[in-house]
């Protein structure tokens, strides 16, 4: 690894006095990048964002490098950030939204795709991550928002965790039916091993009354070992959307979870008059989708 990054806040934490940035008791806003003699990424003709991203042990360092590179070469800084996220282990949505990348998120055509990938990598907790986005006024909404007020959200971007339950093609139109799901992780105490139950009889005497009162009580005592386990639940929300595609897409596989970014095109009335269903179905144009990561980050 030619390029190592040492965030100054770490140096400050350990009281190191050798920082070239002259960090004192407080950490500076921008991290220190120590260049170990590699090519200048801003100008090298052989810039390979993916290869560069994979040189870091930690994805967070990759983002710091991308941030530094952006100052001298905005295009390459963005490419490196994308590559950092595509590594699949960069999960810090807060860092991405802390202001340094605001201009890029606003102006880059692939910013939505990148955010979708990041939300998928983080486990696809749509409610939680959309709340982060809204804290920073990023206009991506939930399907629930859109269905609640279709006129307000018409033409807006929506993100959902969904499974393909049907596909149809009619003329040039290819459409998937998307069933929305929520994903919940819970930490539970689960029994492990056989354990054992001991049954014993206990003689008990009453305390009041002159005659005395005796009776037998059967006591069952169980012992078993428990371990903390993470359990996952996918629950259908009951909301559905018809997702328009440019063409049939074999990678949008049926009955598998995807985090989908789409444009909300409005609602349509179903022919089905079943009272258990919402009589309306959302219609969206699918823009990007990714398989969610196995764990959820909150």
């Amino acid at each position: 690894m030619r390029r190592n990054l040492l965030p100054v806040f770490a140096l400050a934490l350990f009281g190191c006095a050798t920082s070239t940035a002259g960090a004192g008791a407080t950490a500076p806003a921008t991290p220190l990048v120590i260049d170990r003699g590699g090519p200048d990424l801003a100008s090298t003709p052989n810039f390979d964002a993916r290869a560069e991203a994979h040189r870091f042990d930690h994805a967070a360092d990759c983002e710091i490098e991308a941030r530094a590179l952006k100052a001298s070469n905005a295009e390459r800084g963005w490419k490196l950030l994308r590559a950092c996220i595509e590594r699949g282990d960069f999960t810090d949505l807060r860092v991405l939204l802390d202001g340094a990348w605001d201009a890029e998120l606003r102006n880059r055509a692939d910013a939505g795709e990148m955010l979708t990938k990041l939300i998928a990598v983080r486990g696809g907790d749509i409610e939680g991550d959309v709340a982060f986005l809204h804290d920073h006024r990023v206009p991506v909404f939930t399907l629930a928002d859109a269905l609640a007020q279709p006129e307000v959200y018409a033409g807006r971007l929506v993100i959902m965790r969904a499974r393909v339950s049907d596909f149809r093609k009619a003329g040039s139109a290819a459409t998937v039916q998307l069933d929305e799901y929520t994903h919940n992780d819970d930490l539970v105490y689960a029994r492990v091993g056989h354990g054992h139950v001991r049954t014993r009889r206990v003689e008990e005497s009453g305390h009041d009354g002159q005659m005395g009162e005796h009776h037998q009580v059967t006591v069952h005592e169980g012992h078993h070992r428990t371990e903390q386990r993470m359990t996952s639940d996918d629950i259908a929300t009951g909301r559905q959307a018809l997702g328009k595609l440019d063409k049939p897409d074999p990678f949008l596989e049926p009955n598998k979870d995807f985090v989908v970014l789409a444009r909300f095109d409005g609602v349509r009335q179903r022919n089905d008059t079943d009272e258990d269903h919402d009589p309306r179905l959302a219609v969206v144009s699918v823009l990007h989708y990714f398989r969610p990561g196995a764990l959820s980050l909150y």
Partner: protein
Amino acid sequence: MVRLAGALLLMMLPLVASAEPNKLFDPPRTDDSPTAFACTAQTLAAGSECVFEGKPAKSSSAADNSARLRGMATTTCDAALKGALAADAQVLREGCMARFQAAASRCAAEGALLDPDGRFTSSGQGCYRALSEARNQAEGLANAAPSCCACLSRNHCTGAAASCVASAARGTLAANCQSDACDASCAELLSLAPGPIAKSKTPARARSAK
């Protein structure tokens, strides 16, 4: 090894369903093009789920609308009766056509019920549902009538003659049985045409019940 590298490369490619660039902060815009789930004569015939998204264009008279809808009867009935036994097909088909065309005549009003591409509009919802019901009744009859009629015949129920399926298709089946042996077989017919089977409690049966 090369194959593995190729597969890895494919996995790294972004999954893009639409080539259209969409910036996060672009002003809202909608695509009103129809989906492949639009309600049409095909979805009606198949009995599949669909949405009403035809764009209302030129308004048509009630007579024109009725004629256009009645024109869907053949395809719809053929699809609904696909599983019918050959012996019963003709009579069931006639019954289906009659139900469908009656429904089309009843529901068709003036307006744009269909768009020029044959998609039902919001105004056509009522008609679509009425026609679907006629289709589903015909399909239900085709599934239930043969077994019901066979049961009625086996149990010597009066009124269930050779024309049993035809009567069922017309909704005029009325049989009298002395037992409830055919209740299950004929349950669907009961729901489609109320009262086709009457149980006559003879004194003998009443005695046996005691």
